[in-house]
């Protein structure tokens, strides 16, 4: 039955579409956009079907080519991966739909390469989500990165340097991850996650394991732009074409965060300390630092997209913090924040792209009178901003509430303060945007500084 192949189809459908698009584009260029949106929508529907099956029948395990693990390649879809798959494919489908006018007007490069790369990117993200072994996760992580390097570079000009830096840092991240995988293989002789999780507990005192985990966490930390490893993100998000940022900004760092959670919990079994190093606490504190550093840097920006990029650095900190605290409410908060942040950052970057197309630029001063010329977009930005700050009933409130409960339950009062402080910083930088969008009067000369 076809539905038994769902885990594989999640990655195969967009991959086949990615390869078919340039061919279709050569024959009928007008077909490219509907085909790309269709492929994105089909992937989103398949993810929903997968989620439904996982919820009713439990974890799905798929043996590629019929070879049983640990010798064969295994794809695993559990509740977390199905949830992330729905988030990623849903957002990607919307971003593909959103990219239509931008591609027609020529600001995102020619249609066939843009949509082909976008679907390749989507396919590899789905591959990361369903991968049941560490090496396949590496391959999909790199394919996703290569697609996003090319997408960012399609902006030309400053985007080229941003893309080159992203390539260097992203490759170091992936190489560190691969080294970590190599050390785990050296230690256990297996790459399958389920197999590893059974063999690792008896090796917990090994120093090789410590090296492996260090490489894995730093490598994935670069990919998820966790402070202080976030150097590639602001330039890449600011200078990439708006349609590209709208596609990669909501999901890239979330999928890397998912991979980190997968490695820490499904493979290593959430060790509180490895050889005396309190790994999870370090991660939680790095998350706390990211919330504050990203928030403060966001306040200092005068360009909407750059501000949003730093806000991403800050919001990824919440996810890392939740993963580091590793208790029930904190993890619920972290996973919910993957969805919430994808939604609100997607909405804000969609709006930023629309602003750049309509008002001529994304500097905050370009937003003046936006509430008159683009009332619907402004309203969407306000809703997303409320979610970013964490004001109920917007989604951001609930994830931050769970994180707060988790931090207090773990006895980290200071981190709870950081969570609240991060919301206040978000209030400052989002109100700075809204002030320019809604309050600046037409008779005012020049930008107002806050």
């Amino acid at each position, binding site marked *: 039955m076809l539905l038994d192949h769902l885990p594989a189809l999640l990655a195969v459908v967009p991959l086949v579409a990615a390869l078919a698009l340039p061919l279709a584009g050569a024959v009928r260029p007008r077909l490219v956009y509907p085909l790309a949106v269709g492929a994105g929508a089909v992937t989103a529907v398949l993810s929903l079907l997968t989620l439904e099956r996982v919820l009713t029948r439990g974890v799905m395990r798929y043996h590629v080519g019929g070879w049983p693990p640990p010798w064969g390649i295994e794809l695993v879809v559990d509740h977390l991966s199905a949830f992330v798959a729905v988030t990623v494919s849903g957002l990607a489908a919307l971003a593909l739909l959103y990219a239509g006018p931008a591609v027609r007007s020529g600001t995102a490069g020619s249609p066939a390469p843009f949509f082909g790369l976008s679907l390749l990117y989507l396919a590899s993200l789905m591959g990361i989500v369903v991968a049941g072994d560490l*090496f396949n996760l590496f391959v999909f992580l790199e394919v996703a990165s*290569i697609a996003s*390097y090319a997408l960012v*570079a399609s902006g030309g000009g400053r985007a080229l340097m941003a893309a*080159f830096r992203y390539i260097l840092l992203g*490759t170091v991240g992936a190489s560190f991850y691969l*080294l970590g995988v*190599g050390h785990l293989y050296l230690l256990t002789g297996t790459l399958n996650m389920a197999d590893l999780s059974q063999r690792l507990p008896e090796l917990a005192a090994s120093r090789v394991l410590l090296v492996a985990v260090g490489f894995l966490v730093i490598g994935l930390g670069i990919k998820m732009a966790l402070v202080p490893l976030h150097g590639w993100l602001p330039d890449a998000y600011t200078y990439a074409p708006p349609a590209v940022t709208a596609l990669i900004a909501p999901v890239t760092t979330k999928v890397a965060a998912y991979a980190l959670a997968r490695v820490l919990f499904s493979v290593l079994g959430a060790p509180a300390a490895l050889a005396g190093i309190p790994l999870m606490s370090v991660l939680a504190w790095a998350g706390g630092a990211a919330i504050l550093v990203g928030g403060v840097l966001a306040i200092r920006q005068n360009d909407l997209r750059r501000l949003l990029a730093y806000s991403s650095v800050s919001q990824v900190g919440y996810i890392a913090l939740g993963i580091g605290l590793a208790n029930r409410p904190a993890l619920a908060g972290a996973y919910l924040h993957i969805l919430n942040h994808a939604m609100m950052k997607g909405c804000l970057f969609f709006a930023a792209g629309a602003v750049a197309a309509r008002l001529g630029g994304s500097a905050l001063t370009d937003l003046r009178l936006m509430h008159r010329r683009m009332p619907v977009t402004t309203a969407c930005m306000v809703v997303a901003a409320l979610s970013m700050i964490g004001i109920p009933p917007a989604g951001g409130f609930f994830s931050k509430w769970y994180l707060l409960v988790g931090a207090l339950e773990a006895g980290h009062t200071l981190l709870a303060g950081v969570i609240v402080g991060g919301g206040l910083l978000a209030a400052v930088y989002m109100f700075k945007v809204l002030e320019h969008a809604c309050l600046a009067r037409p008779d005012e000369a020049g930008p107002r500084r806050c």
Partner: protein
Amino acid sequence: MTEFLAYAVERYTYWAYVALMLIGFYAMIAHGNLLKKLIGMNIFQTAIILFFLSISAKRGATLPIIPPEAAELVVAPPHFMNPLPHALMLTAIVVMVGTLGVALAVLIKIHRTYRTFEEDVILRQM
């Protein structure tokens, strides 16, 4: 001391991989020329290939190909090299070629735009 030396010499491939990795890393950080940074990145990646291949090596072992007439005999793992790291690295090399290709394409575009590979000159022009 002699024990340590014997230990170090015995695992010389690991030392080579660490040295290569640091050379690559240094080139990526220290050079202002984008092309040299990229070469550094490639050396860095190659070091990882060397690391994986040294996992699979065994003294006195042969290729892991078992002729059909010997398939019924007992196959002793110490006599054969581990083929899995080689297979992994074949895939990793393909991935690295992809990264390198995209990076070179970006560099060509950078050179067409700015007429130089020197990072500080480009940053002044931006």
